[in-house]
Each structure stands twice: as C-alpha cells, then as structure tokens.
C-alpha cells in the first residue's frame, strides 16, 4: 500500500475488495499512510471495522472512546494543529500566490522598520528585533513540524493491542509479533535520517521495534509533522548491538510503493502474486514554471519513483487508484468518505477480477473456456492414434495476455493441465518463442519440435523458454478476442508433451482445433 496522505482512504476500499474475494493474505507492506492501513490489516482489522459505508459507521467512534479529545480525523494532528496544516495546504495549492504574499509581508515589514528607524533608532531597533524573532519562530515551526504524532501513536498502539492481544492491556505490539502464529507478516518503509538510508521495518530485520513507532516513522512528512526518533539497534561495524536514537522521515521520499519487500517471498513461492495498490493523482496537473518548479520537484522526488517499484514484474499486479482527494484533504465530509471508500472498493475489485489468477478462490469462470479446449484436443488426440501414435500425453492450455507493464513477455493465465486448473501465474518471453510469431502475424500457428531456426536465439535464451521447449513437442497459438473484453491482444497457447505426426491430416485436425478455439472464445456480443 503506497503513501499518498488523505488519499489513503482508498486503501480501505482496496482492503474491502481483497476481503470480498477471500484472498489469503500472507503479508502486508506499506509506506506512509499505507503503513497505517497495512499495520491495521495485518493486526486483523477488516475494511468495515475502519469505515463501513453501508452502516455509515467509522472507527472514529472507537478512537473517540480511546481519546475523548479526538472527535474528527483532523484532531489526530494535535490540538489546534490542523489550522496550520490547512494553511500549508492552501500554500501548496497556490505556491505563486503564497510566495507573493510572504514577499509582500516582508517588504511591508522592512518598510515599517526603515520608517520607524527614521523616527527613532530605539523603535526601529525594537521592531527589527521583533521581526527577526518572528522569522526565527516561523523557521523553528517549519523545522519542528506543525502536527504532533503523540495522540495518533497512542491510539494506534491501543488499536493494535486490543485486536491482537485483548487479554494483555498495555502490551506493546512489536514487529516480531507478525509473521508467526498464523498472522501475516508486516513490512513498513521509512527514511532513516541518521543513517541516511531507506529503513525497512520487518519481523526479520527489526523484531524489537514497536509497530506504532515504525508507522509514525513512515508517516512523518517533514513540515507537516515533527520528525520522530526511535531507539534502534546499531548494526554498523563499530558498535554492533548498541542502542541508538535514530531520526526518521516519511518513507515516501525513499520508496512510496513498497512492493519490493516481498521480492524474496516471490522468489521462494513464485505462484503467490503481490498486489501493489498505488495512490495516484496530482493536485496540480499544470506544467511547472519558473516560480512553481520547487513543488513539482518535491512531488517528483516523493512520488516519481513508483515505476521502479514495479520492475520486478513476475507475479506483481499493479492496481493504480486515482482520486479527486488531495494529499492533505483530511477534512472531507464523512458522506464523501463513504462514497470514496465504496468507489475504491468497486474499482479495486474491477481490476482484481481482470487479473483473475489461477491462485484465486474461484478460477473456474475463465478457466472453463480453456478446460473445454483442453478436453476437445485431448479427446480427439486420444482417438486419432495415427496422428498421435503415443497418445495425447500431457496437454497444457493457457491464455497468454499482454499486460500493459510488460514489454518482452506475456502472462500465462487460466492454465489447464491434465484436465485441472494449474496454480500458476507465469511470464513467458515473447522473443524467440512461438508467441512472438503470433503477435507479429496476428495469425494462428502450429509448430512441432524441432522448432524452426529463427526461434534459436542463443544470446537471448531464457531458462523459462528453455523449460517450456524441453517439455513440449508441439505448440498451437491462436489469437482470440480478449475474454475480458479489454483491448489487449490475447492468445490461446496449447502445448502437448507427445509428438504428433506431420502431414495433411494433422493440418486438417489443427484447422478444426483453431476453429473450435475461436468458437469457444467468441465474445458474448457476437452471439
């Protein structure tokens, strides 16, 4: 779950979409506002516990019970702190106006000091001192941050303890409490200003760290909040094991979309996908100008690297969530909050249903078409022994889809092997493989081993393609309408492990196969 300030509301909708589909979540990771929801979800909170648009209830009533001074979400910043943050939001939205107004105030003050000095040096000096004091106070406020994290930290600590250890009041929930006893793991990203490096909090790396501390470290956007310090164990060469207070800032400046912390888990278990929910959106889409470039620079620095987090594409599903909410719109009316959460749940669900990996609870809907194709090929090859003298062998049918983020490969989905869905979400390279031929020509093709020489790309061979080639004796690729009515090119890839005879009869049978595959994949609109 990515960072994105008040837009984090959308993560509650994403949580709801995951729950509706009964996904078994093995781990949560988050940055900034995403860290709050990742921690709550990992602790066992459900979307409806946080905001329930149907019952029109929110977690604010529970929070109010924990701290009666907190009535609205903006109270979490600390008493009277929201006013300063609201002014900051106004200045961020109109930076040119803000610069002009602050410069105007500066000029007026300077003029006042010069005028007062011309009347009396004492008054001029006092006014100058007051002005310098004001500037220093404002600078100190900026460096100290407007908001306070104390209330939020206490509330989060209580919420986690009540859900995970209800019989142990006062217990601090730590990183080591996750990823064990059937609980999902939890990973939180922050920027460590002491080590000047990205800090990943996880049960393996920082078992002793209080979750509330880690979350505060991740959300501490400079100027908006005072930067927190956390007791950390020194891992440098000189003082291994010594405790040290490190200063932290918002994780968004180092990695706003933390999908990569699960790279190792994906390598161990490549069939388990990672869902990356990214809060996109931009308060100000206008092109940067001479006076407004610093905000564009800051925004690019904070959120511009999201693309890099998606490079490890295999098994990663990117769910971008755009919204009209601004970064600091924590004061939107509660009715709008319900509306946004409902919309986010529907939008996330819509995207997740399009991915429909074979690892989801009900792969049957889309896999049904491939099962029919599988059965058709298997039954005909079983009967026509002259064409398939050693029987049909192991037949595999899958749909190859071009994901928008993939340039060199295609994703195999809805795999059927030996009449059963195969739990796999696999990327196959296009270049040097039969899929590339179908992409280029847009025509169905049938190949038997040994494949033509143009597929022998020694320098760009990949293990995955070699593995497929080692197993298959024939390949059938048929372009079909996208089963999900997307505009993506889509192909049915059928392979078999037993050789088939070559000749006109085989060509005739293949034509029947192609005809039937197209018939099965015809979109409902065409009937």
């Amino acid at each position, binding site marked *: 779950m990515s960072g994105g300030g008040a837009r984090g509301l959308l993560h509650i909708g994403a949580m709801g979409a995951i729950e509706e589909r009964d996904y078994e979540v093995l781990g949560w990771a988050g940055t900034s506002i995403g860290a709050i929801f990742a921690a709550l979800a990992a602790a066992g909170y459900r979307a409806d516990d946080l905001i329930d648009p149907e019952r029109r209830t929110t977690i604010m009533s529970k929070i109010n019970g924990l701290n009666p001074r907190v009535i609205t979400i903006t109270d979490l910043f600390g008493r009277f702190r929201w006013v300063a943050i609201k002014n900051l939001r106004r200045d961020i939205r109109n930076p040119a106006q803000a610069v002009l107004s602050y410069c105007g105030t500066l000029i007026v003050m300077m003029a006042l000091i010069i005028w007062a000095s011309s009347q009396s040096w004492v008054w001029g000096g006092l006014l100058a001192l007051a002005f310098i004091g004001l500037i220093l106070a404002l600078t100190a406020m900026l460096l100290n941050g407007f908001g306070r994290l104390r209330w939020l930290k206490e509330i989060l600590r209580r919420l986690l303890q009540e859900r995970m250890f209800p019989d142990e009041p006062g217990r601090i929930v730590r990183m080591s409490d996750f990823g064990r006893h059937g609980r999902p793991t939890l990973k939180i990203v922050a920027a460590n200003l002491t080590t000047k490096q990205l800090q990943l909090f996880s049960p393996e790396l920082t078992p002793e760290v209080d979750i509330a501390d880690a979350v505060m470290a991740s959300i501490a956007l400079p100027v908006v909040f005072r930067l927190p310090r956390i007791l950390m164990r020194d891992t440098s060469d000189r003082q291994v094991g010594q405790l040290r207070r490190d200063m932290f800032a918002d994780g968004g400046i180092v990695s706003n979309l933390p999908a990569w912390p699960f790279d190792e888990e994906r390598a161990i278990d490549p069939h388990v996908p990672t869902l990356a929910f990214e809060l996109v959106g931009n308060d100000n889409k206008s092109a940067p100008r001479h006076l407004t470039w610093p905000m564009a620079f800051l925004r690019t620095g904070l959120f511009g690297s999201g693309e890099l987090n998606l490079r490890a594409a295999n098994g990663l599903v990117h769910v971008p969530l755009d*919204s009209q909410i601004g970064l600091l719109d924590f004061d939107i009316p509660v009715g709008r909050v319900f509306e946004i959460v409902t919309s986010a749940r529907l939008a996330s669900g819509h995207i997740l249903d399009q991915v429909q990996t074979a690892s989801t609870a009900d792969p049957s809907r889309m896999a049904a078409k491939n099962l029919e194709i599988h059965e058709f090929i298997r039954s005909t090859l079983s009967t026509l022994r002259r064409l398939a003298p050693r029987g049909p062998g192991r037949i595999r049918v899958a749909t190859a889809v071009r994901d928008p983020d993939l340039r060199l490969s295609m994703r195999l989905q809805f795999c059927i092997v030996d009449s059963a869905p195969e739990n796999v979400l696999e990327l196959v390279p296009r270049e040097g493989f039969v899929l590339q031929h179908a992409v280029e020509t847009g025509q169905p093709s049938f190949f038997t081993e040994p494949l033509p020489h143009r597929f022998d790309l020694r320098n760009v061979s990949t293990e995955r393609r070699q593995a497929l080639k080692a197993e298959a004796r024939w390949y059938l690729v048929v372009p079909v309408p996208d089963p999900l009515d997307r505009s993506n090119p889509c192909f049915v890839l059928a392979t078999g492990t037993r050789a088939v005879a070559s000749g006109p009869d085989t060509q005739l049978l293949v034509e029947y196969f192609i005809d039937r595959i197209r018939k099965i994949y015809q979109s409902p609109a065409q009937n």
Partner: protein
Amino acid sequence: MGKRLSDEDYRQRILEVVARADLRLDRVLPELRKEAAENLALREARLASITDEKLRKSAEAWGK
C-alpha cells in the same frame, strides 16, 4: 490388428471424431456464453456505479 484405413477414410474418421467432440461443445457453449454475458453485464454495472470519476476512469483504463 485392424485393417489400416485409407487416407480418405481416415479423413472421414477425423470428421467423425471432431463432430463427436463438437456435440459436447455445443452442449457446453451456451452455458459458457451465458456466463460470459452475465460477467460482462456485472462488470459494466459495477463500473457505472463508481461515483468518483477519477476512480472510475482508472478502473476503466486498467489493462488498456
């Protein structure tokens, strides 16, 4: 060992086998298409019910 079929007879045999497999397909296809039509209608209804314009657009744009 049975008598080896001539090429013409074997082509006839392919047709018979394919026609038999087709019969099964004809039984299954209407159900598949009905389900696909229902899924499509569900998806469209769900998209239409997203009231936040930007969220609707990001959901519509996914995969395109």
